């Protein structure tokens, strides 16, 4: 008989399940302004602490404090707030449109609006994002026509992607938005490759890769970090840690590591963890990383700490796996409220102006929706022609596809 104790498998569990009272009081939230701001040519090993803390700019009183503050003008901050309001209004409309049967699927960014909206302002025209499915803020904070996004969601006759892609899988080279795959993590290494090409050509453009907390477990995440590290690619690698990968809490992908950001340190990649619900902090950290990449100092890994307030998608019901109250208990607050309070604190905004701005944006979104619906919706059509289904598989249609199109009689 062996006297060895039998092994047992450890399976991590989130702290709270439906029915539990969520309490995040033991989650350490560092003070705004406390994190130092390094030079952009810093070595990863010299800023290890930034991979474990949370860089924050706005304090509880709505003031912007510390070395990462004071980068944006009043007007730029107002624009940022309006961008986030636009994402929220757009999401609400499209979520409703899906419920009304006008499309098959939708994904909101509720609670995460600050990340894509602020990051977008840190880049320059010509830079390229390799987004996941929750970065609509990248497009909604540029001049990309909202109505084209809706046309895509409806797969209608004016869909720029000809009805070929699942709703919200936009593509716009002109607006620095790489075609969304729908497969996870594949784009993370592609962004590194794009950045390598920019460096090979002696260009000045940089790339930004995006990934969620859950997908960091994919091997492509590792591939991306290896290539970015080896070739010092001019790329900003964004992890959006919104705590939930559908029903799987972030601890399943994170394992024993203290943070997702810390994964960068083993690759010698500077890693920063930022309050993803703090527009000013996201902007400042993104700007730092973008400048670092453009100056030829190589990649940066950013973990944006946030919370997915909405369901994963319209096909998901989070009440089955997490307490309903969890998002309210989440200690980093609401990004829109926080930036609004900051603008009020600056003396350049008011509750009345906020209501007015929100209503204006809601009208803008509603009008875009009307225009889009003139081009059709998923179930009622019209759509692109069925014959177009055979086009663009290749640059020139090969014989076997020509024959299949003929058989299809379209």
């Amino acid at each position, binding site marked *: 008989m062996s006297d060895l104790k039998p092994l047992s498998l450890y399976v991590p569990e989130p702290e709270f399940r439906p029915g539990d009272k969520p309490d995040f009081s033991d989650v350490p939230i560092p003070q705004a302004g406390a994190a130092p701001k390094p030079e952009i040519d810093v070595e990863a090993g010299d800023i290890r602490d930034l991979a474990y803390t949370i860089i924050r700019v706005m304090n509880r009183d709505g003031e912007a404090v510390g070395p990462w503050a004071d980068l944006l003008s009043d007007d730029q901050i107002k624009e940022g707030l309006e961008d986030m309001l636009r994402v929220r209004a757009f999401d609400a409309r499209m979520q409703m449109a899906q419920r009304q049967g006008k499309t098959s699927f939708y994904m909101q960014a509720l609670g995460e609006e600050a990340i894509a909206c602020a990051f977008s302002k840190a880049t320059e025209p010509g830079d390229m994002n390799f987004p996941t499915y929750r970065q609509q803020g990248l497009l909604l904070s540029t001049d990309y026509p909202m109505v084209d996004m809706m046309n895509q969601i409806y797969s209608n006759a004016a869909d720029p992607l000809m009805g070929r892609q699942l709703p919200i899988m936009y593509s716009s080279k002109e607006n620095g938005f790489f075609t969304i795959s729908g497969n996870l993590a594949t784009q993370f290494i592609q962004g590194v490759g794009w950045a390598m090409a920019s460096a090979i050509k002696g260009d000045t453009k940089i790339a930004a890769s995006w990934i969620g907390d859950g997908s960091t477990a994919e091997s492509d995440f590792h591939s991306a970090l290896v*290539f970015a590290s080896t070739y010092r690619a001019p790329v900003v690698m964004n992890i959006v840690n919104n705590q939930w990968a559908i029903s799987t809490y972030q601890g399943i992908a994170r394992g024993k590591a203290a943070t997702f950001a810390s994964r960068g340190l083993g690759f010698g990649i500077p890693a920063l963890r930022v309050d993803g619900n703090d527009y000013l902090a996201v902007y400042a950290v993104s700007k730092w990383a973008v400048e670092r990449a453009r100056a030829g100092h190589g990649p940066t890994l950013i973990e944006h700490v946030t919370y997915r307030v909405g369901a994963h998608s319209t096909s998901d019901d989070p009440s089955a796996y997490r307490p309903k109250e969890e998002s309210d208990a989440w200690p980093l607050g609401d990004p829109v409220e926080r930036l609004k309070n900051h603008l009020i604190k600056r003396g350049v905004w008011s509750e009345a102006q906020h209501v007015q701005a929100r209503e204006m944006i809601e009208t803008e979104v509603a009008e875009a929706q009307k225009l889009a619906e003139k081009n059709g919706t998923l179930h009622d059509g019209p759509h692109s022609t069925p014959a177009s289904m055979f086009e663009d598989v290749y*640059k020139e249609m090969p014989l076997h596809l020509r024959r299949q199109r003929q058989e299809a009689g379209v």
Partner: protein
Amino acid sequence: MARMTMIQAIRSAMDNAMERDDNVVVFGEDVGFFGGVFRCTQGLQQKYGPHRCFDSPINESGIVGAAIGMAAYGIRPCVEIQFADYVYPGYDQIASEASRIRYRSNNDFTVPMVVRMPTGGGIFGGQTHSQSPEALFAHISGIKTVIPSNPYDAKGMLIASIEDDDPVMFLEPKRLYNGPFDGHHDRPVTPWSKHELGDVPEDHYTVPLGKAAIRREGEEVTILAYGTMVYVAETAAKETGVDAEIIDLRTILPLDMETIEASVRKTGRCVIVHEATKTCGFGAELMSIVMEACFYHLEAPIIRVTGYDTPYPHAHEWDYFPGPKRVGDALKKVMEAA
């Protein structure tokens, strides 16, 4: 014109392509300073610099994924996977990404990328250096799959692949690198210097993708083959005396269906030969195409001669390999049928 091995021809193709277009970059495992384990990229780093030809980490999803990003940027990566057997970690990037980016973005982004890989057996490489995964690529819409059988085609088709605006899987039959192997492993190797298709122009030229070549004209039976099996088929035809028409497919997708169909309509018989495993191998597709288009012209059931549905066995390489004896038996059998 120079006498070249297939390795030299492939190197010459990349050299010409890199010289003509500084958007062409080459990378992969061991391809930089050393020039690749089969030496296909030898001298390219020295000539074009480390930013045009460089070593990559051992990470196939990274190699293909980075190449996709580069191609989306607007340059033309031509990457090497050290053995086709190692492509699988990069397969998701090929099957889910490279193949669909043009389609899903409605031409907003494209992937003019070539993934080169040595394929097939015959060098005692065992199960991890002998596989023929072409059917796994042919099953994917949106990529092209090329398998040249000689130095002339290898160079012309590699340049055509690099200049192509769609992703191309370029499979190089490694047993053909140094000579046209006829399947008789116990006989001396014929070098490419003794074969007319070893005559290769040193300058730029292309051989179009999607066009088969008739290697031997014949009246009695059509043999569909590609890569190493083209020479095995030639040997089998010679040894049996069957007047076979041998079609070297060269590109398996897009497939030159018209050449295949015209030949089978003429001969009324068809034997399909490949080294890859049988079940769902590309031969299954070829057989279906011939049945759909030529059934009323057939005088005998179509026969497939392929690798067996086992892993590639090290010690039993020559029992596994579909050599001239097995192909010859198939030719006799297809001729015996009424």
